[in-house]
């Protein structure tokens, strides 16, 4: 009984750590701690302003240094912002650090090696144009409320199984012919 009392909590901690570790294994690590919240909620930038091709092409595109340079330049690092609390200071410092990484990429004219999170397998064809422009589907329906996320996207919002696609196709009364997606 004594042994159970002693090893019980230890065993429990090991199990919790293992679950946490296994759960996080599928997550990708992004090169910059990108904050959607700041861009979408605070600066009120629309999804399509950065993911420019979502309406016209199959791939929505992930913005890179060229798009970032439209709004950001190195002079930002010298800007002194009014900081009232410790929390503000930490937040500002974190922003500065991430911006430094971005400016390093921009200075070297090197592309940010973003890791793609939402991808479909090679044997399934997905067109953003078909869904966004023709279907009129809002980004949040598949990608979740990404705009409220303060940390980078590390895993897809939906599991994207074939059944999930087909359910929606059936509801929206669009083709469920295999050739609509597999070619």
């Amino acid at each position, binding site marked *: 009984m004594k042994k159970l009392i002693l090893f019980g909590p230890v065993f429990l901690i090991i199990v919790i750590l293992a679950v946490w570790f296994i759960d996080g294994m599928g997550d990708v690590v992004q090169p910059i701690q990108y904050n959607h919240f700041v861009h979408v909620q605070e600066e009120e930038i629309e999804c399509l302003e950065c993911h420019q091709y979502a309406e016209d092409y199959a791939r929505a595109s992930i913005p890179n240094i060229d798009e970032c340079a439209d709004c950001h330049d190195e002079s930002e690092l010298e800007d002194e912002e009014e900081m009232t609390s410790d929390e503000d200071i930490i937040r500002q410092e974190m922003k500065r650090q991430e911006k430094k990484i971005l400016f390093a990429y921009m200075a070297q004219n090197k592309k940010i090696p973003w890791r793609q999170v939402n991808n479909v397998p090679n044997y*399934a064809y997905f*067109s953003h144009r078909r869904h966004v422009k*023709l279907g009129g589907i809002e980004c949040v329906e598949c990608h979740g409320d990404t705009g409220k996320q303060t940390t980078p996207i590390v895993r897809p919002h939906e599991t994207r199984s074939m059944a999930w696609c087909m359910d929606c196709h059936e509801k929206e009364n669009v083709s469920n012919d295999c*050739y609509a997606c597999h070619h």
Partner: protein
Amino acid sequence: MPKWGMIIDLNKCTGCGDCVTACKVENNIAVVGQEESANGRTMLWMDIITTYEGEFPNVKVRHMPRPCFHCEHPPCTKVCPVGATYLNDEGIVAQIYPQCIGCRYCQVACPITVKTFNWYTPEWPGRMAEACNPDVAVRPMGVVEKCTFCIHRLQKAKEQAAVEKRELRDEDYVPACAESCPTRAISFGDMGNPTSKVSQLKRNPRAFAVGEDLGIEPKVYYLSEVE
């Protein structure tokens, strides 16, 4: 629903092989190499069957491009145990690779031998892999594949027509082989529409189909050579 079909004018065909190359590049068809090719494992969705008549010096060479005939009664679909190949609403015989188990029954059933089997994981020489068409899946080892009438082009054409808020026109959707043919020997369009170019060509007295006697009702017709 349209019924897509093809007319190949043998009088215009010079056997240049442009259609074969265009098809191969468009559809990410694997390059198998000389050794495997000698074993009968050449992978072509569009092939040119060449026949020689007579003896030297009076030799007559005939060329016959051969895509999948997309039969109205396809024997291949009837033998597939998993439904990986079927006739879709638009008359195209589909081949769904993730569904295929590689039993090769369809390959045996096809009277015109258009189906090819992936004996190996596809490979391309040098940096050719980077030039693969992103609209077409690269088939894995162990599945059967064949001509799809460039179905991905149909999907794109439909998308474009929907964006422009108009009906799909005949010229919107052309497979790579028909597009590349320098002598315009290959015509493609909706055979269900009696006024389309292919329907008119089909009524030409020179028109004939291969395998009609088998009752497969192919949707690829040929216009015979004029002697």
